[in-house]
């Protein structure tokens, strides 16, 4: 008996040790959220109302009862709920239920969850199938080269004529080798340099965008101004990663070429510049999205400017700079924090950052809904104009943007500046082809993470580079590095 007891005790001990180990293996995250708080547009917004005939048509073509949307934050959800389905109490498409599955983007988390769901996709349809999913520039190539996306023209049924007002690059990025368009976007993402007008007046003596642009026209001028700012106790940029996209989106080739990780000279340039800026105190040693980085966006945050793409204004800068957020009843007008005290200029180098595309998933049994969403939320000139006007987003519709500019558009958040004119010339010149790979998110995040140590003075450049290589080999086992 004692022997048996001892054996059992031993087995139990092993079991416990073993289960600890396997517990970290394949745990399934059920991190999905349904609905959530939405900015509902107090009923007066009728552009998105589906006309009776359309509704009838949708009913005929739709067999699915559940519409599953995969995305990583609430940006698209709020567009959807404000401009597509403003009245939440009304049934949409004869009672089809919309199910939002939101998984955060960081550490490839969203991609992994999406791939898992697409792996279970039933090609003959079903209510558990993914119907619509969003992809970002950093990994859109992964889905463009796969057969998971529906052909926007051939299968979803959007016509070339519907798409004519979109910026060409937004379509090129999502077109595969055979010329098939796999996704569409509601935004174009040219980058700008957003600066704090109060600091501009204090240090440069003017907050006029044209004058400030002269002071940051190229990287030499930018560094000169940064020195002036530093002398006044103001950081030129918030942290290490702020200028990253200026370099990473002007590379000669993508991160991964023929299965090998290649570090572009432009990326090296960013490392050199950032180290220099850090040593000279031109930044506040923040990392992207962290608290110091966010705090710098207050009007007295001690940071002169931020490199932001179009979506950065409504989604980051505007909420971050307000003293009293709109949820707390703060008003969007001058006097509430930095509202009206930021300006935009082109900055030292043209670049783009990000971009989100909507893709229909193969196996969806609600393709008519997908078509309807794509038409209304990425092609409809009136809705696009309205989004740009009210949400500050830069929509992917040349016609809408032109109309707004011609109509004497001014942006109250930017103190009455017309930043659309700046952006529209930048958007025309974006060229993403040959710069994207399927592995960009992991490469960007890992590289920035590793280099942070070099900037902070904890390791040499070579050590940081070695760290990047080890980590990227583990993260992407299918890649090789030097």
């Amino acid at each position, binding site marked *: 008996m004692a022997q048996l007891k001892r054996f059992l005790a031993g087995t139990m001990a092993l079991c416990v040790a073993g289960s600890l180990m396997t517990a970290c293996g394949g745990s399934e995250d059920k991190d999905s959220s349904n609905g959530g708080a939405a900015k509902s547009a107090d009923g007066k917004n009728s552009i998105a109302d589906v006309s009776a005939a359309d509704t009838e048509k949708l009913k005929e073509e739709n067999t699915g009862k559940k519409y599953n949307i995969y995305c990583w934050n609430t940006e698209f959800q709020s567009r959807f709920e404000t401009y597509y389905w403003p009245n939440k109490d009304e049934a949409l498409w004869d009672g089809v239920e919309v199910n939002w599955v939101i998984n955060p983007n960081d550490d490839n988390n969203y991609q992994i969850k999406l791939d898992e769901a697409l792996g279970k996709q039933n090609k003959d349809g079903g209510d558990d199938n993914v119907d619509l999913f969003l992809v970002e520039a950093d990994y859109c190539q992964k889905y463009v080269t796969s057969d998971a996306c529906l052909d926007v023209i051939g299968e979803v049924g959007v016509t070339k004529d519907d798409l004519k007002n979109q910026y060409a690059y937004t379509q090129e990025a999502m077109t595969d080798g055979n010329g098939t368009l796999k996704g569409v976007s509601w935004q174009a993402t040219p980058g700008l340099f957003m600066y704090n007008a109060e600091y501009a007046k204090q240090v440069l003596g003017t907050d006029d965008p044209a004058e400030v642009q002269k002071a940051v026209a190229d990287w030499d001028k930018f560094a000169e101004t940064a020195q002036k700012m530093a002398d006044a106790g103001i950081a030129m940029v918030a942290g290490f990663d702020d200028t990253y996209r200026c370099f990473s989106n002007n590379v000669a080739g993508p991160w991964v070429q023929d299965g090998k990780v290649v570090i572009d000279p432009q990326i090296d340039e960013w490392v050199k510049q950032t180290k220099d800026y850090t040593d000279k105190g031109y930044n506040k*040693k923040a990392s992207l999205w962290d*608290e110091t980085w966010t705090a710098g966006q207050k009007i007295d945050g001690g940071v002169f400017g931020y490199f932001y793409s179009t979506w950065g204004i409504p989604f980051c800068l505007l909420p971050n700079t307000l003293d009293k957020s709109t949820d707390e009843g703060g008003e969007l007008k001058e006097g509430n924090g930095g509202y009206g005290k930021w300006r935009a200029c082109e900055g030292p180098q043209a670049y783009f950052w990000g971009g989100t595309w909507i893709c229909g998933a193969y196996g969806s049994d609600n393709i008519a809904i997908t078509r309807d969403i794509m038409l209304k939320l990425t092609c409809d000139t009136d809705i696009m104009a309205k989004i740009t006007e009210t949400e500050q987003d830069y929509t992917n519709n040349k016609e809408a943007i032109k109309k707004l500019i011609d109509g004497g558009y001014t942006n109250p958040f930017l103190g009455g500046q017309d930043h659309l004119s700046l952006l529209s010339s930048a958007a025309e010149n974006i060229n993403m082809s040959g710069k994207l790979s399927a592995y960009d998110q992991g490469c960007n995040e890992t590289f920035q993470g*590793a280099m942070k140590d070099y900037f902070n003075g904890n390791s040499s450049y070579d050590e940081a580079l070695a*760290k990047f290589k080890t980590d990227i080999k583990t993260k992407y*086992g299918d890649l090789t590095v030097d």
Partner: protein
Amino acid sequence: MKKKTISYAKWGYIFLIPFFVVYFIFSFLPLIQTFGYSFLDYVVGQGTVKSIRDPGAGDSTIINNGFCGFANYSAVLKSDGLFSLSFKNTVILWLVGFVPQIIVSLLLASWFTDIRLKLKAQGFFKTVIYLPNVIMASALSLLFYSLFTQDGALDTLFGNPVLLTKIWGARGVVGFINFLMWYGNTTILLMAAMMGIDTSLYEAAQIDGANPSQVFWQITMPLIKPILAYVLVTSMIGGLQMYDVPYLIGGTSGNPSGVLQTLVSQIQLGKNSSVGRVSALSVMVFIVSAILGFITLKVMDDQSIRTRYGKKKKK
């Protein structure tokens, strides 16, 4: 002659069945699978997605070149391999937390059980020191992260040293969180061991004129050795699996300088792609933990029984 006793043991085994069934399916089989993977040249490509239109084509993302012997193990064990990089980090992080933990716990436990001290409101203190263990590790980590991060409350108070970007600062914070979480638990365990010591031994020592430190080192320590060994080994096993706290403080890269990258961080980093290699790493963590587990059993078995009861019988 008929046996008249009823075997209650049978019921014990019956009640154990559900555990073993669940364990077998959800832990044991995956464990065996991990062993299997560790001998395969197995990678999941992250560059594309499994074909939906042609389900018969199989999963094109899986690159499985079959059996590769110990290649994964030798890759992991290389001087710049995953094991050597992260094992050192893990051990240092564990030591930084464990050394203060065992010292404080021993001190508290001996005060609580001291027959001359007779501390009041023991229940209250025991609850309070145990409380941090009730809070989730992730919640504590986030709290400390926001306290010590750049411009965090304590960071500002101490004049912005940004502790979390300094190698020993980050190690210290992780160690302190682990200390805070586990010293209560260790104290309770050690107290149980100390209360099991015959009080006549302490009385005899007092009569013989031993001072408190002599009592502690000559009587308490030798007699709680088995529990001490148990605490040490279970803490080591727990330490080997350390992941949540360092990850939440240092992110995937384990900043600063990757010193917060533990064994399990590496497994987490590679589990979606470098399946073969991180399986080999998992197996090695398993082997080290198993060895430590057997050491506990051995120590518990031999010493506790023989020193406590065996010697008494001789008298």
